[in-house]
């Protein structure tokens, strides 16, 4: 399993697990931003055949994007 980000306030934790492609978004503000976050994840992880889980703690869009990019790059083998 690959992980990026934290569960601190204003942050998001993104996990990528091997398996069939699936996107799960958990957010405190799911009603307001759930769809938008889902769309961002969908767009940034296109072509990745894995389970992607985003736990949002009220993060801004750029924070979620940064955490997704981190997770993808680790998933593709980048280190340090």
């Amino acid at each position: 399993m690959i992980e990026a980000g934290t569960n601190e306030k204003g942050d998001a934790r993104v996990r990528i697990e091997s398996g069939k492609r699936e996107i799960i978004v958990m957010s405190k503000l799911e009603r307001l931003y759930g769809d938008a976050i889902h769309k961002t994840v969908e767009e940034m992880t296109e072509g990745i055949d894995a389970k992607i889980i985003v736990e949002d703690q009220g993060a801004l869009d750029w924070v979620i994007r940064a955490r997704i990019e981190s997770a993808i790059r680790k998933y593709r083998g980048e280190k340090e």
Partner: protein
Amino acid sequence: MKLRRTRLYVPGNNPHLVENVGLYGADCVILDLEDSVPIEQKFDARILVKYALQNVNFGKSEKWVRINSLDTPFWEKDIHEVLEFVDVINVPKIESYEDLEKLDTLMREIEEKKGIKMRGVVPIIETFRGLVNVRGIAKHPRVVAMAWGGEDLTAELGIPKKKALILDHVRAEIVIAAKSQGKMALDTVYSNIRDEEGLFEYAKRARYMGFDGVGVLHPNQIEIVHRAFRPSDEEIEDACRIVEAAEKAKKGGKGVIALNGRMIDKPVLERAKKILAFAEVD
């Protein structure tokens, strides 16, 4: 004149602290990838900082990133990720001109590839080796200001930082090195964030030591430092009179500036202009 009275350190791994940095009014904001980021978070922080530099409103603050030192496996990755989006790279534990050449080679390569202008560097002198070479380091064309840190120096001597008399000499060396090359000199942080009076005196002393600014760890320290760096009313009035006399002499085509029978030469005029810049008077 660009002011660098305050440079606010913000941990580069904490989005909640990063998102409001432009609101505080610091002259510079440093997103830190070094000491405030644990090793296991270096990767994520570097990417977070890249996004922050492009998305956060920094207001009037200059955008700095403190990268990891050149003896770590992280510094090159830090530069690759953030250089395009910063104004200044702050680099710890610089010990020689050659260290800066190493950094410069990579920076130049990226700047040419991306077609971006040359970024500035502020080296932090933290070791005796760095201190011995400080005048050479200040000569490097990348350097826009010189900074220093006392923890490693005093640790090496086995003495508490607060009682280390040698640090006044270190401060003087930093100022002399920077000023001999026409660069800025930046004092280190005042770490007791609750001691407002102590900070004011510290910043005032830094100003009279010849520094152009100090590091700050908390937004509440910014206004106090700016106040400490504000010249006195007497200094401002005197500077205004000098600059006005210079403008009058220029208009009248006179090469010599005189004020109340006193000749005003170039260094006096330069000092007056600097005082007005610190006073934020146009």
